[in-house]
C-alpha cells in the first residue's frame, strides 16, 4: 500500500473534520493501528487546524460563562472533594485566587445549607418540646385538682373521725351523763342523745333520728330544771354528727321542740319531739 498517496488523498483531512463517510472512518481507524505514520499525519493536520482556529477567534460574551457555571453548579457539589491532585493543580496554577474564590463560595453554600438544616431541626425540636410542655402542664393541673379533692375529702373524713373520737371519749368518760331522748307519745321512733359533762357543764347533742324541720323552723334543746324549761341552744341544721350546745349547770331532763327559726323564750310544748330524763 502506498501510504504517502493515501495520506495525501485528503482522507486524513476529511477524517479530522468529521466529513469522512462511515466506510472511510472504519478504514482509516484500522490503518492507524497498522501504520503509526497515518496517526502522525492526522495529528499534524489537527494541530495545524487548531492553531489556525485559535488565531482567528472571537471572544464570546462574559455572561455565557456565568450562566454555564451556574447551570453546572449542581454537578460540582457532588464532586467538590479536596483531593491531593486538586491541591497540586491549584499550587501549579497562577489563577489560584480566582479558583479559591470558587472554592470558598462552595463552602459558603455548604454553610448556608447546613444552617438552613439546623434551623429546621431546631424548629422541629421546639415544636416537639412545646407539645411535651403542654401535655405535662395539663397533667400537672389535673394532678393538682385531684390532690385538692383528696385533701378536701380527707378533711371531711378527719372531721368525722374527730367527732367519733370525741363521742367515744365522752361515752368512756364517767363524768359524762348520757341521756337517751325519745318520743314521749311513743308514736314516732324519733331519737336523740345528749352527752352532758357535769364536770365542765358542756352539752353535746347527737341526732339519731329526727324529721327534717320545715322551712323557717328550727329544733331547740331545753334543759328542764325543777320543771322549768331553760334554753340549751338551737340545733345547727348544718351539724350532722355531735353538735355542741349551750352549757347547762343543772337539769333533771332534756327536751327538743320545733320552734320558729331563731328560737323562742319558752318552748312550744305542742311541738315536743323528744324527751329524756336523767
Amino acid at each position, binding site marked *: 500500500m502506498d501510504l504517502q498517496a493515501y495520506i*495525501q*488523498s*485528503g*482522507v*486524513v*483531512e*476529511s477524517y*479530522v*473534520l*468529521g*466529513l469522512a*463517510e462511515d466506510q472511510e472512518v472504519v478504514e482509516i481507524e484500522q490503518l492507524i493501528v497498522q501504520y503509526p505514520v497515518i496517526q502522525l499525519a*492526522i*495529528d499534524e*493536520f*489537527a*494541530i*495545524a*487546524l*487548531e*492553531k*489556525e*482556529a*485559535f488565531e*482567528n*477567534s*472571537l*471572544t*464570546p*460574551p462574559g455572561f*455565557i*460563562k456565568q*450562566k*454555564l*457555571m451556574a*447551570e*453546572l453548579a449542581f*454537578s*460540582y457539589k457532588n*464532586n*467538590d472533594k479536596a483531593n491531593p*491532585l*486538586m491541591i497540586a*493543580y*491549584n499550587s501549579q*496554577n497562577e*489563577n489560584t485566587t*480566582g*479558583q479559591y474564590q*470558587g*472554592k470558598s463560595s*462552595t463552602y459558603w453554600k455548604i454553610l448556608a445549607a447546613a444552617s438552613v438544616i439546623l434551623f429546621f431541626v431546631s424548629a422541629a425540636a421546639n415544636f416537639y418540646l412545646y407539645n411535651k410542655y403542654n401535655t405535662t402542664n395539663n397533667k400537672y393541673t389535673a394532678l393538682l385538682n385531684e390532690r385538692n379533692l383528696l385533701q378536701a375529702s380527707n378533711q371531711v373524713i378527719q372531721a368525722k373521725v374527730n367527732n367519733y373520737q370525741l363521742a367515744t371519749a365522752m361515752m368512756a368518760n364517767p363524768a359524762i351523763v348520757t341521756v337517751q331522748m325519745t318520743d314521749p307519745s311513743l308514736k314516732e321512733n324519733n331519737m336523740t342523745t345528749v352527752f352532758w359533762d357535769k364536770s365542765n357543764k358542756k352539752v353535746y347533742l347527737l341526732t339519731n333520728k329526727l324529721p327534717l324541720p320545715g322551712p323557717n323552723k328550727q329544733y331547740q334543746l331545753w334543759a328542764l330544771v325543777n320543771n322549768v324549761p331553760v334554753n340549751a341552744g338551737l340545733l345547727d341544721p348544718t351539724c350532722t354528727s355531735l353538735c355542741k350546745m349551750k352549757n347547762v349547770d343543772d337539769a333533771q331532763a332534756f327536751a327538743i321542740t320545733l320552734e320558729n327559726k331563731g328560737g323562742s323564750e319558752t318552748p312550744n310544748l305542742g311541738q315536743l319531739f323528744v324527751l329524756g330524763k336523767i
Partner: protein
Amino acid sequence: MLLLKQRDQDAFGYLYDNYSSTLYSIILNIVPDRDLANDVLQDVFVKIWKQIESYDNTRGRLFTWMLNISRNASIDAVRSKGYQKSQQNRELTENMYHAGGSTELNTDQIGLRKIVNKLKEEHKVLIVLSYFEGYTQDEISKTLNIPLGTVKTRMRNALIQLRQIIK
C-alpha cells in the same frame, strides 16, 4: 485531563477560558445569529462537561473532539424548525448557500471560514456545504446538479488545498 474527567470545577473553568473563543468562532461560522450562537456555545460546553468521560485521548486531540461537538451542535441548531422559521422572514433567497453571507455578521473573517475563503470558488462551495451546513456528498451532488463522482473528487482536492493553506 484527569481533573476534567473527575469533573473538577476549576479545571472546567480553565478549559472554558482556553477554548471558548475558538469554539465560539466555529459556531458563529455555522450559526450567524448571535443569540442562537450564544445558546449553542453554552449547550456545547454542557455537552463537553457531560461527555468528557467518553473522550479517549488516544483516538484524537481534545480540541478536535470539542470542535466536532461544536460543529454538530451548530448544524443541529441551524436545522431546527424554530431557526428555519425565523430565517424565512430574513432570507427569501435559497438558504442553502450563504458562503458569501457577510450580510448577517462578518463571520467569514473569523474561525475556519477565513481559511475556507482562501479556496477557489469550486472548492469553497463544497467545504461550505459539507462542513458548515452539514450536507452529505450525495445531497450536494443533487443540490448543485453535479455527478457524485465529481463531488468526491473535488472534495478531496478541496481538502488537500485546505491543508496546504493552513500548513
